[in-house]
């Protein structure tokens, strides 16, 4: 996240916390600020897209809160001021829909699949999904309660492989962290995570990953203050600019 956006996010959080939002932001300005709650994996492409949009529309500011989709859905249903919600899975979008907080119907804009991340040099010589179940291979996966863990379970079922992980993390970033630090021999993460990690990890693709494709939906939030700008942002994400940036980050087409 750019320092400016981060500083602004902190300021807004502080203002909300102290109940001073109304005093801090004049009404005219509020019309040009969009708050997007997006799944953590979208950080790079969404930040880049926001920079392009802000450059093209002077005076418009786009602020992000990147976190786990389930956290974000909970925050929005507890009244967090979001204009747009981009989820890493359909389940958390449905959760918000059930609460009557989704404006219109959500649009699928990207897909993501699992892949195997190994530390540089692949110390445990992992070459396939089945290798992850080998004794002696320290595999780290997501817990079944979070989207990446649900996808992992699906692949296990489809391939008839039962993994015996040394750890079931509650976020995909924690899985990647264990691989980057060399604690784990392999971790199941998203393709986009491996791409973002650069040369800190190596990828071992496996064909069975196609059996568990995560689809990302985006929607405007009913309680959002900025309907026009929200619609424009969703248009940009699903349009050529957004799709180009998402492809670049490793996301697939829905």
């Amino acid at each position, binding site marked *: 996240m750019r320092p400016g956006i981060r500083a602004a996010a902190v300021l807004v959080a502080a203002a909300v916390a102290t109940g001073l939002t109304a005093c801090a932001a004049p009404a005219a300005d509020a019309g040009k600020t969009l708050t997007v709650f997006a799944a953590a994996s979208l950080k790079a492409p969404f930040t880049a897209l926001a920079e392009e949009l802000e450059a093209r529309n002077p005076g418009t500011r786009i602020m992000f809160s990147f976190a*786990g989709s*389930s956290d974000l859905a*909970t925050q929005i249903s507890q009244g967090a001021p979001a204009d747009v919600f981009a989820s890493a899975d359909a389940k958390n979008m449905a959760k918000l829909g059930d609460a009557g907080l989704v404006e219109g119907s959500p649009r699928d804009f990207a897909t993501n699949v699992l892949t195997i991340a190994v530390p540089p040099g692949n110390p445990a010589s992992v070459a396939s999904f089945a290798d992850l179940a080998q004794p002696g291979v*320290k595999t*780290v996966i997501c*817990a079944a*309660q*979070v989207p990446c863990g649900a996808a992992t379970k699906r692949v296990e079922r489809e391939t008839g492989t039962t993994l015996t*992980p*040394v*750890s*079931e*993390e*509650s976020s995909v970033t*924690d899985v990647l*962290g*264990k691989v980057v*630090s*060399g*604690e*784990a021999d392999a971790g199941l993460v998203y393709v986009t995570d491996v791409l973002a990690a650069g040369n800190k990890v190596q990828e071992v693709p496996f064909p069975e990953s196609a059996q568990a494709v995560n689809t990302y939906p985006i929607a405007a939030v009913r309680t959002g203050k900025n309907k026009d700008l929200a619609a424009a942002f969703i248009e940009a994400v699903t349009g050529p600019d957004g799709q180009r940036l998402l492809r670049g980050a490793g996301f697939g087409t829905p």
Partner: protein
Amino acid sequence: MYTGIPRWVAAIAAVGALFVLLPLAAMLGRVNWQQFIPLITSESSLTALGLSLRTAAASTVLCVLFGVPLALVLARGDFPGQRLLRSLVLLPLVLPPVVGGIALLYAFGRQGLLGQTLEIAGLRIAFTTTAVILAQTFVALPFLVVSLEGALRSAGSRYEAVAATLGARPTTVLRRVTLPLVLPGLASGAVLSFARSLGEFGATLTFAGSLQGVTRTLPLEIYLQRETDADAAVALSLLLVVVAVVVVGLSYRGPAPAGSGGRPAHSGVPERVPA
């Protein structure tokens, strides 16, 4: 005893107390009481609770083992770098636990400073219960050191000096005079360490991982349950609050405030100084 507290001080104190109690009360309001017992007695919950109690007990033992000598050295010693040592030992108090976890990773992890050596010695720390205990000890040790050092300082060293002039060796003085004098301080320090270990989350998550029965302590279980089952997360949170209140409540009887270093009211000053 003087008890004249100005009204405005009492009013602000009430706001402060409310600030702490309100969130807890709000959580109580969200507990699904019909499902409460099944939620906290599910297999994963009981496993996590058992693991938490066992690891916190082990960490407390380690804290006492290393914390008592540290507090003695800091309170009674006189050497260059003492202040620096104190600041460094107390650092985990102010560090975000996740930073502690990263630091532990680079010390005891597979690729860490001692990782290779430990691996050759056949000791695997990564993803084991040992890693949980290390993380808890790291964050809880300062609590014991602070409590005990305060108790040692306020107890003073007069009795120790008398014992020494009567011919007691340093170890005898420590065993027969110093430790009995500061026992209440040591006890409250140990309780604080236990409570801190019980609540440890960030360093464990970063350093030890999360696997049922091995590394997934109660706070990690709560964090995970929150993803899908808010009722379970709230029920387990309440369980953790109750365990913490019971532990702290049992040991904080009497007016001796822990960590403040106040002289314990019933400090049991030895009637006879053994020669």
